[in-house]
């Protein structure tokens, strides 16, 4: 092991969903404080890969190391390493009148894993929650129910949940799904700002290739296998996109800022 191991090291990872391999022999690594996008068509195995990396899905083969610690067969990690990982899902199962306030939810992000009465609160926890809400522009939402929030507000609250204690690896699974363009833009700006301040290493599944081109350092193109990887300009070239998504995908550039995307 080197003195400065990659935050995430994946080698020969295969993941089975039902009878079929959803991910096959994928290897990559994430250096500290980099932002990596995982792109690919629907059903390419992106969420399966993320699930296996986080220890939520079993691996058919391969190894995963997070901060130099090997992920166990059932997703085991030392508690201190697990506390360094944050995850933003696409959505939460929030039915109407869900009895949980934003402040309470963010507080659970501060509490350590395992059985504890930390939710009863202490001054340090309360200050951390207030600070996280302030940093994400959610201070006015503290007493609102989670189920009362708009999509954009909920995503910011999820970022507050992640930033409420120091972490190193942030994994986002299509975190911007369901957001309109301005909300998506605001979310991305906030993510970028927090990433710089916190020194997060980011792995994000995304379909927004324009955002990926603009914000990410590295792109992993997945379609069951890793089809290509590299800097956005290289990995998202017209030829590579056609190879990944099929010939009907035509890259275009937005007129308002001249940044590339795909249609």
């Amino acid at each position, binding site marked *: 092991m080197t003195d400065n191991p990659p935050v995430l090291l994946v080698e020969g990872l295969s993941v089975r969903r039902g009878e079929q391999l959803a991910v096959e022999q994928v290897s990559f690594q994430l250096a500290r404080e980099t932002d990596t996008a995982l792109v690919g068509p629907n059903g390419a195995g992106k969420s399966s890969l993320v699930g296996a990396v986080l220890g*939520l899905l079993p691996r058919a083969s391969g190894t995963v190391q997070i901060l130099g610690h090997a992920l166990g067969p059932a997703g085991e990690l030392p508690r201190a390493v697990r506390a360094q*990982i944050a*995850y933003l*899902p696409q959505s939460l199962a929030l039915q109407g009148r869900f*009895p949980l306030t934003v402040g309470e*939810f963010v507080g659970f992000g501060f509490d350590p*894993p395992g059985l*504890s009465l930390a939710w009863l609160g202490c001054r340090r926890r309360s200050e951390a929650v207030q600070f996280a809400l302030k940093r994400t522009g959610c201070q006015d939402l503290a007493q*609102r129910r989670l189920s009362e929030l708009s999509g954009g507000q909920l995503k910011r609250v999820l970022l507050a949940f992640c930033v409420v204690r120091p972490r190193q690896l942030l994994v986002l699974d299509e975190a911007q799904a369901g957001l309109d363009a301005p909300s998506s833009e605001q979310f991305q700006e906030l993510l970028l700002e927090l990433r710089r301040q916190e020194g997060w290493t980011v792995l994000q599944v995304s379909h927004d290739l324009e955002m990926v081109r603009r914000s990410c350092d590295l792109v992993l193109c997945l379609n069951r296998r890793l089809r290509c990887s590299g800097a956005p300009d290289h990995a998202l070239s017209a030829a590579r996109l056609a190879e990944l998504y099929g010939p009907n995908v035509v890259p275009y550039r937005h007129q308002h800022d001249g940044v590339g995307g795909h249609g």
Partner: protein
Amino acid sequence: MTGLAAMADVAGLLEVVGQPFMQRALLGGLLTGALGGLLGSFAVLRQLSFFSDALGHSALLGISLGILLGINPTLVLIPFAVLFALLVNQLVARSGLPADALLNIVYSTSLAFAVVALSLVETYRGGIQQLLFGDILGISWSDLTVIAVLLMGALIYLALSLRAQVLLTLNSDLAGAFGVGASRHRLAFIVLLAVVVAVSIKAVGVLLISAFVVIPACGGRLVSRHFPLYALISACLGGGCALLGLLGSGLTNLPSGPCVVIVQFAGFLLALLVSKTTRCSPAGVCLHSGRQP
């Protein structure tokens, strides 16, 4: 005359309340109601209310099997309910069918088997009525001890695992990524729910058990926005309504289990009314208002 009759009724109620069996019943109602409300507050959010209904119906099959085999039904009930819950949980997870449809199949089939099994027994001392609607007046001190221990155990487990329970309810991947042993906690909760249902059956009955789990929790949800408060209000609603229902039953000489459920329903309507006429400030303080929040 009416006033005299009412006084006579109250005097009669006081006399009944003074009886040891009624004191045990009141304590049993309070504990069972609180237990149902507490577990229900989590079960309803996890969309497990139909699961508790299926467990309740399956309990009748457990009791029937106990009678058929000549074993004390109470002894059979808890292991049967736990085993049944685990099997149904696996079935729901692996079949790929919608959970509500599958649970419907399970509970109606287990009810059918139970009735067939009971028909094979010439006479059942307890009576089918008591199985269906409970016999809280027949609750013993040992039953009360079991319920009290279970309530304490549930309270401790749920308090210690509150973060895990809430995150699991919101998104199981989120919970897992943040260090929650999702399958372990999910299984523990289902086992706890099964044990609570099995223990409460004697007092509440097969048909009314799901009301004890669902109604107080829904009432609590209408009037609280903070999670610990929601669980507390649900437990208090469950226990309080059970107490009032039993007193009402003593006053009117009507069946106790159904009286409790009717009072729970009244409590739910009251919570609905309160939720429609209160307005909460951003600080979480709720004030009376004519407008909906």
